[in-house]
Structures are given as structure tokens and as C-alpha cells.
């Protein structure tokens, strides 16, 4: 009975196995990025960038129809362009990064929706916005796995640089020549994950798998070295749970995965040992000195 719910769907159906692999790959690399987004006080930047990707994917769609390479390439170009433009605008104008990002992504979103509606039905728009995790083909899987691998490798190599750029950017600029490039590199990774994620979960839902496990993990530990793997594990488990739930009830898969992550987040919000609500109820006696 239990096996029927939790194992059989994946054993019997290839599309379920593909969905699992794709969404777990995205969770493993996306969630650690989410932790850094939170630490850099850029929690909403992921959301903004996901909107920014839309016109690029739409142009790809207009040119080549529902084609993975074309939409991926288009989304990637649009996302990187806007991440880069935001970085430049915040450096060289008086607008701060959040204001620049908001301006760019709003224009980009309006452009994207206009482009999509020029050709094609609302069904196509729904696909771009919400993805289809149970329809992942080989190319999409390779893209997801490749992006995940690349992201984790880059995070490992640039870990100290990223920590320093978040903790004490002036120190990084003063001691190292690569300091200036780190914010761009980081945003590029976020864009890469969002673009890979929109096939599985859609542009909007992909952000959920990046932010929710990260926010939940932050509530359990104050140590960064523990937060990163914990967030990835939470993301992977939520991807699995969401797929199981979706398979049982027929709920759409993308939202099911994000809702699973949402449940973990709310549980963490209450019970989290490092900042949850329950911690406030029974304060422990203070120490001697």
C-alpha cells in the first residue's frame, strides 16, 4: 500500500522518473543559491529575474515554436542581459540595485506577455509560466543536470569569494582583483538555474524551489556550511513529495512541488531551532556571564 504510493509510480512510469531527476537536480543547485540570495538581501531578485527571462523565452518561442534550445537560449540571453544591465545601472547611476531591477523586469515582463500573445494560445503561455515537469525530454534533463553540476562546481570554487562579497564587499575589492566580477557571476548562476528550471516548473514556479527550501533551512541552523546542504536536501525531498502528491491527486506538478516546499517552510517558521516562533515561547534561563 505504502509502496504503491511512494515507489510504484516511479518504478512504472518513465515520465515520473524523469520528473524526479529533473526537479531534484534543480533543487540541489537552486536551494544553495537561494541561501545566498537571502544573505545578500536579494530574496525578491530571483522573482524579478524569473519575470525578466520571459520575453527571451517568448522570442525563442516566436521564432521556433515550442523548442527547447530556442526558448532556453532566448531566456538565457534575456536574463543575463537584465542581470548585467541591473548591475551596471546600480554601479553607475544613482538608482540602487533593487530599483533598477524592478524597472528592468517590469518592462521585460510586459514585453514578454505581449510577445507571447502575438502568436499562440493561452495554453502555450501557461506552459511557459508554469512548465510541465512530467514532460521532460532527454534534452531538458541534460540541461537541468548540466546546469546543476555547473552551479555546484562554481559555488565550490567561488565559495570564499562569494562569502566575502556578501559579508564584507569592500574588503574583497581591496584585496582581490576578481571582487568586482563576483556579483555578476552570482546573478548569472541564478539566471542559469531559472532558465533550466522553467522547463520543469515554469518561470514563476522555479523561483519557489530556489527560495522556499533556502528560507526554511535558514530557520534551523546559523552555520552557513550546514545551511547550504540542508537547503538542498529540503528542496530534493519537497520535489519528491510534490510529485507523489501530484500523482495521487492529479494536482499540477509544479505547484504541488512548491506547495510541499511551502509546507516545510511554515513548519520551519514555527519549529525552527534557529529563529522559529516556538523558540520565543519558552525562553531558557540566561547564562551566568
Amino acid at each position, binding site marked *: 500500500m505504502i509502496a504503491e504510493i511512494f515507489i510504484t509510480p516511479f518504478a512504472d512510469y518513465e515520465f515520473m522518473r524523469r520528473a524526479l531527476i529533473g526537479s531534484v537536480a534543480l533543487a540541489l543547485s537552486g536551494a544553495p543559491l537561494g541561501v545566498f540570495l537571502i*544573505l545578500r538581501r536579494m530574496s525578491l531578485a530571483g522573482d524579478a529575474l524569473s519575470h525578466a527571462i520571459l520575453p527571451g523565452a517568448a522570442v525563442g518561442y516566436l521564432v521556433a515554436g515550442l523548442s527547447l534550445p530556442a526558448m532556453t537560449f532566448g531566456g538565457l540571453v534575456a536574463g543575463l542581459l537584465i542581470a548585467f544591465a541591473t548591475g551596471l545601472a546600480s554601479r553607475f547611476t544613482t538608482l540602487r540595485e533593487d530599483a533598477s531591477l524592478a524597472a528592468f523586469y517590469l518592462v521585460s515582463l510586459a514585453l514578454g506577455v505581449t510577445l507571447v500573445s502575438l502568436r499562440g494560445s493561452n495554453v502555450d503561455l501557461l506552459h511557459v509560466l508554469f512548465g510541465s515537469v512530467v514532460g521532460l525530454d532527454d534534452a531538458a534533463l541534460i540541461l537541468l543536470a548540466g546546469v546543476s553540476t555547473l552551479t555546484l562546481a562554481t559555488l565550490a570554487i567561488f565559495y570564499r569569494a562569494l562569502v566575502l562579497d556578501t559579508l*564584507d564587499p569592500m*574588503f574583497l575589492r581591496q*584585496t582581490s582583483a576578481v571582487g568586482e566580477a563576483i556579483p555578476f557571476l552570482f546573478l548569472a548562476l541564478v539566471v542559469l538555474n531559472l532558465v533550466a528550471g522553467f522547463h520543469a516548473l515554469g518561470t514563476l514556479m522555479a523561483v519557489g524551489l530556489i527560495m522556499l527550501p533556502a528560507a526554511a533551512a535558514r530557520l534551523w541552523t546559523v552555520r552557513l556550511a550546514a545551511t547550504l546542504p540542508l537547503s538542498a536536501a529540503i528542496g530534493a525531498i519537497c520535489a519528491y513529495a510534490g510529485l507523489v502528491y501530484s500523482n495521487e491527486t492529479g494536482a499540477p506538478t509544479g505547484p504541488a512541488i512548491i506547495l510541499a516546499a511551502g509546507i516545510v517552510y511554515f513548519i520551519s517558521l514555527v519549529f525552527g531551532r534557529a529563529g522559529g516562533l516556538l523558540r520565543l515561547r519558552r525562553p531558557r534561563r540566561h547564562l551566568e556571564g
Partner: protein
Amino acid sequence: MGERILGVALTSAHTAVAPGPIRLVNLTLGYDRHPAVHHLDGVIAPGAALAVCGPNGAGKSTLLKALAGLLAPLGGHIERMGGGPRDVAYLPQLTDIDRSFPIDLRDFVALGATRRAGLFGRIAADETVRVTRALHRVGLDGLEERPIGTLSGGQMQRALFARLIVQDQPVILLDEPFGAIDEATASDLLGLISEWIAEGRSVVAVLHDLDLARRAFPQTLLLARQRIAWGATAETLTPENLARARAMSAAYDKDARECLIDETEAHDHA
């Protein structure tokens, strides 16, 4: 284990290059073409202990920022014999350190080794010894595991000094190092600065406390956007010079407009 570590000589061996003189040549610094330091010439000799004094808005912090390589000159240049702008240790007045970042004191201080280890290299085992020694030197032993967000203002300043020790650079730039800390902390850290000077490092410190400059720094630069005086501290910080600096800085606000018109073409009126 602490004992054994302390057995290692407390004065750290110089791994950094011997500092050469730093020459300021007709240096003009500023933001958006508004000069904050105007046509400054001078030499910071190797091993110099130089206090930089002057009224608010005199360009002291701007000068330090340029010495740290964080600000490109509007005119003139900085000549360094041996070592580049990254071969200095710099303590800004207002750090943009995110104190809520989840990192403990030991790791925070260990980041001072970044330049030696490289951003990608691993931090070697002997760096751990260096970090422990630095924390002991600033009186923060026992707090290694504490997140930096839980440190008091004085403790954080000590932690930043520990990071400077770990950086182990021949040139050390300090911007208002005793700004908001109590006397005990200030005198501890001043002792550390004296050690650095005795070891032959160059120390350039922006100071508001003129008595402190007189006590601890043989050389002083009195700055009011331009050089009022630069030399032995006793001869620099005279009542006449100080009055002149005050008058200068008051006068500047009035002719700011005129100066701008002069400089709309290009700043190179050298």
C-alpha cells in the same frame, strides 16, 4: 594547545615584501569631479608612522581610500616602490560588513589570510596558528566560536585589528580606528599599532584626537583638502596651522561653485 601556540614568537615574521616609499605626486582625489583632496604632494617613507589630521570634510578618508587602491585619482598619481595597492591592509571608518552574516569570529579573522591563500586556495594549517595568535593578541581568546553578530562594538573593532594582524601587510591604513570605542580598548589597540611601527611597518592613521597623534605618531599630515603642513608632529600641529586648516575648510564651501566652472573642461589643470 594554546600554550604551545604562544610558544611561537609573538612578533610575526614578515612574509610580506619590505615596504618601499609611497609617493603622492600632485594627487587630486574626489567624487564626481568634486575634489576632496587637491594637488597633494608628499612621500610616506618606509616604516613611517603618519597621522592624518584635519577638520571634517578635509579629504582624510578619501586619501586613505586612494592609498588602499579603492579610488582612482582625478589627477596626479600615487607611486609605489615595491608592492601594489593590494599589498596594504586597510581598515575603513565605516565598514560595510554585514554583521548578521552567519560566520564565527575565528573564520572572520581567518579571512585576513585571503590575499596569501588566494580566493580559491585552501587556508593553510599555519594560518590557523596565526589566527589564534592574532585573537590572543587583541584579547579575544575564548570567543572564537561566537557569531560576529553577537560581538560588542569594541570587540568588533578588536576583531578587525586581529584581521589586520593576519593580513600581515607592510603598509597599514587605519581610518578613525578609535572612533567609538572605550579607553581600555583604544589603549590596547594603540599598543598594537606601536608594535607594528616597531616592526618597521608603515602605519597611516586618520585621527581626530590630536593629543593621540602627538603621543603616538612622530609624523603628521595636516590636511584641509590641500596640504597645510606635513612633517614632525610637533611642528605640524601648531595653533597657527590648525587655525589655517579651519579657515581653509570653511572657505572651501564658498568657492566650490567657482572651482566647478574652472573644471568643467577637464580636471588636468596640473
